[in-house]
């Protein structure tokens, strides 16, 4: 249970960073921290203490041998690929923003009023 709580604290840390930072690069880093915390939680869900990798071996696996759940692992792999796309695009956009406005401070990037 401690691991799950630590994971949730990491999630909240990322969220806090996202809300208070003014630098757009720091915002991107905070978003990545939130991502990582969710990936960790997915891995934790599938993990069984003392379990072995879910691979089909040639020799017989002993009875009652715990095997970790492979589905969250595939989910995390897919989510990491999506996160790669997210990060690369958001950083490309940050570079463009810097070229247009000459600053990383979101308080000075305020042409739109929401």
């Amino acid at each position, binding site marked *: 249970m401690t691991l799950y709580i630590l994971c949730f604290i990491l999630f909240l840390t990322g969220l806090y960073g996202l809300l208070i930072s003014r630098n757009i690069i720091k915002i991107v880093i905070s978003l990545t921290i939130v991502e990582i915390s969710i990936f960790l939680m997915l891995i934790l869900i599938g993990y069984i203490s003392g379990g072995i990798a879910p691979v089909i071996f040639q020799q017989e696996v002993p009875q009652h041998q715990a095997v970790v759940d492979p589905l969250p692992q595939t989910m995390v792999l897919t989510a990491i690929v999506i996160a790669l796309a997210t990060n690369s695009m958001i950083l490309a956009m940050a570079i463009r923003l810097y070229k247009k406005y000459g600053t990383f401070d979101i308080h000075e990037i305020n*042409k*739109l009023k929401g």
Partner: protein
Amino acid sequence: MENPVLIFFIFLPFLAAFIIPLLNLFWDQAKTIVLLLVSLVLFLLSAIIVINPPQITMYAPGGWYPVDNIPLGIHLVGDGLSRFMLLIINTLAFFCAIYAIPYIKLFTGQKYFYTLFFLQLAGLNGVVLTGDMFNLFVFMEVAAKASYALVAFGVKKTEIEASFKYQVIGGLASLFMLFGIAMLYWMTSTLNMADISVVLKNNHVDNTSLIRFAQLFLLAGVAIKSAMIPFHAWLPDAHSSAPSPVSAMLSGVVIKVLGVYVILRLFINVFEPCGFMSMVIAVLGGISMTAGVILAIGAWDLKRLLAYHSISQMGYVLMGTGIGMGVIASGENPEVVALTFTGAMFHMINHSVFKGLLFLTAGSIEYSTGNLDLRRMGGLAQYMPLTMIASFAASMAIAGIPPFNGFFSKFTIIVAAIQGGYYFRAALGMLVGIITLASFVKFQRYAFFGKPLTGITLKQTPVLMNVSMIALAVLCLLMSLFIFPEVRAVFLDPAVNILIESTD
């Protein structure tokens, strides 16, 4: 029943997206032909699939069929609701594609626009067809990534800023969704939506407070995607910065599919409707309906005004949904349930047509005059009569003037609210309708009537843009026919039945 047609809704746009840059190396016109052909085929396929007799069809890509009723792999499910959403998506995408051909000549890098357009379409079709929770997340990301890039397509200062804002908020929403899906997998040990609902219904999950926790995270993610009022900050910027055909797709389809459709699917089909969730959804809907229209009154930028109205009109749909869920949960007045969901579905398809059309007319005004500020327009009626007719039809539809479709759907929602005993929400719906009318009278008055412009040369709008706008204006009138039971039985009732049946 097996139906392999379903996979084409995902496969064809993906194929088109990646074949366009290749074909364009050899022949310059290839992109236009592929765009028209593929969007026409998808439009016809979606129309055929809706008119076919209503029964649930499915397709298992890769041939992973269930073993002993345990689902393996990812299934595409085409039930009434999915087919209804497919019709909305592919109809508007077809008309936006026609419109985009001349419009996108204002920009450089046209072939990338076509690629992104089809990626967005593939993602949206995937979201409504999939029967798997994690696959839903993946397709949402495909559609969202394409939308982020399309918003920044003009690479001007404001567009990059809007896209960055959209990406941070939208990315956080996706992560909330992923967190909710992870919690749900933890509780139920399955990702198949039908299977999750069976597990939850049979009370195989002991810890209901953790399910509620997961539900709240899912709702937060979806509410950000559908821009309900406390979470709306990205929408007016993103929708007003995008190129006009993209704004039409974003407002007409994307917020419906990524927002409202996912709410309907998750909170009615997967989870059983409960009083608490229905109240949260109806209150969010009511707040966005009222605050959206109040924000719209003060807007002078035409596309920003339309974007605020999108928030307000989606509020109507969510309020209708929330009332329906509340009536199901309380178990009183079961005959009102069908009426509320009919109103919500009807308003959703109407909104996609008239809001799409309004953004297209805004694009046409921008194309000929080069500005979107209502204070610097006037007397456009004599220069662009076709645009004026189309815009008038759409404005009357959104304001709820009788012969147009918007009146019937708003009326259905308000009548359902009264019959369900929610008098305050019904009164709010009527009040918002009146303010909407005022706001669109302002738009018509400043843009098309009044003092004519002087000293500005107006560009003629191309034929294809006019064709697409007039076709959508005719649809605005024709869709009033949905109020007749015979027509409704074909288009709306299968979708409504899916929402009602799940609770039996």
